[in-house]
């Protein structure tokens, strides 16, 4: 594992909101085949970090390398086309479109140009079939024709996952995918991510410690914008600083 080149590398990343250091000299990496979990208390800067990797926030300094290439100057859309897939902490879908059409948009993006003006998408088997396949993968096939706004919270999370997978990403950024899923949903998703890691490495932000400890190959702990510890599940479990700062009273 250790000798394979990382797919994502963050070097000395910094981002402040006024006087608040939301990202304070963060360096971490994600290697092929692994789930790297990022944990930390509320407001630690986890989402801020994800936003910078995805390109929706510009860091004040530092380096973001994806597949060995510096992607700092690229837009969100360009990073996605390079293979950076993501889900949002608060689900982000096209609310007026059906679940199917939402996923079809991802498929369309991977097929290249969206500047095709005349062929109706619903008659395009290459879009519909590929999208249906991804919906089945996340167990949402029966809900394909339901408008996204009418899906339940959990279903919308599944939909987002299908949309991210349809992009054939080389890395997935997941911001609290378990949030609000309920115990049953979390368990299913944990199982799903466990199999997914073989296809695509994941940077996983998650509060659900049970899920994190069972899934993560490595864990980094973020507190007040800086990484106070990074290591295997056991290392993090037994780390004094982490217990004090974060896991603290729990066990």
């Amino acid at each position, binding site marked *: 594992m250790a000798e394979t080149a990382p797919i994502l590398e963050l070097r000395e990343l910094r981002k402040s909101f006024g006087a608040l250091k939301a990202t304070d000299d963060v360096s971490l990496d994600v290697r092929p085949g692994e789930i790297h979990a990022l944990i930390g208390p509320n407001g630690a800067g986890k989402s801020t970090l994800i936003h910078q990797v995805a390109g929706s926030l510009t860091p004040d300094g530092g380096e973001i390398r994806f597949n060995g290439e510096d992607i700092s100057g690229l837009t969100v859309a360009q990073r996605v086309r390079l293979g950076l897939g*993501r889900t949002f902490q608060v689900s982000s879908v096209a609310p007026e479109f059906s679940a199917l*059409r939402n996923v*079809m948009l991802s498929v369309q993006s991977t097929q290249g140009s969206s500047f095709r003006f005349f062929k109706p998408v619903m008659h395009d088997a290459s879009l519909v079939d590929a999208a249906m396949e991804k919906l089945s993968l996340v167990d949402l096939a029966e809900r394909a024709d339901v408008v996204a706004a009418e899906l339940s919270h959990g279903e919308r999370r599944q939909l987002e996952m299908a949309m991210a997978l349809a992009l054939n990403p080389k890395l997935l950024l997941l911001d609290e995918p378990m949030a609000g899923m309920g115990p049953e949903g979390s368990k299913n998703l944990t199982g799903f991510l466990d199999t997914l890691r073989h296809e695509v490495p994941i940077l996983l932000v998650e509060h659900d410690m049970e899920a994190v400890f069972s899934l993560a190959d490595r864990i980094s702990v973020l507190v007040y914008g800086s990484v106070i510890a990074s290591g295997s599940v056991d290392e993090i479990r037994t780390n004094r600083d982490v217990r004090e700062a974060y896991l603290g009273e729990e066990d």
Partner: protein
Amino acid sequence: MSRETVINWALALGLLAVPFLALMQGEPFYITLATRVAILALAGVGLNLALGLGGMVSFGHAAFFGLGGYAAGILATHAFNQEPLFAWPFMVSGSNDMLLIWLVAIVLSAVVAFLIGLIALRTSGVYFIMITLAFAQMIYYFAISWPAYGGEDGLSIYVRNGFPELNTLDPIQFFLICYVVLMACLFISARLRDSRFGAALQVARQNPERLAATGIAPFNIRLVAFVISAAMTGLAGALFADLNRFVSPSMLSWHVSGEIMIFVILGGVGRLFGPLAGAALFIVMEFYLGGITEHWQFFLGIILLCVVLFVRGGILGILAGRRVHG
């Protein structure tokens, strides 16, 4: 057939029937009225692409309407006077061929929309509304202060421009030209809406962050939609100049931008045939209420307020119910 499809057909056939009924009744004036509806609806169909599908609230579409009008007026004037537009670096003469004039109107509107869009589409919300308005007003004042083509007084087209094999001076034939152009643009709009581009454009309105997270840059999609939208409104402007045989800066004024927006909102934002329903109601009100009271726009205002406040989907929303999505 969905209820909306039935209503669309009724609107299309209804408009087509008016001039023929008018002819039978010996009331040729109504042919002109129907032609006006067709042309103004076309201007609205253009705006509807930007506003309805893409969520770009352009308050500057009069710029394209007017540019299309001036394309027709200027080319026709030069053809009439047999003076070239310019002689260097190559000779360009005027024309009274509608097809050529349309092409010029479309290209001119598209190029100007591209330049305006490059700047305006970096903003959104109220700023976008204000910037599109500002650009349109710039062109308006330019037209007023440019004496070569009539300045404030405008420009007359002495003989309506010609169409191969047709007599454009015959009101029915001119109506049919406008009608076919309208239907063609409606067809193009329908195909655009259902295409890959249309899918991306609609998501650019619903959730631009999602579109970007899907690997499609919202700016590029919006820009192209804005250009196509402007081209259709520009084409409508060229027809409007030919209908009135006159073009003046008033075609470029913000009132016109407002009216085009009213057609779209009244008819139902994002509904394919919304602009036709809206323009038809507008013209009918202008004609009948305008005959009863000078203050017809006051009543139009009340209707508009009701539509915006109580019936989200405009006329088509009332008649055909909520929009259905594939």
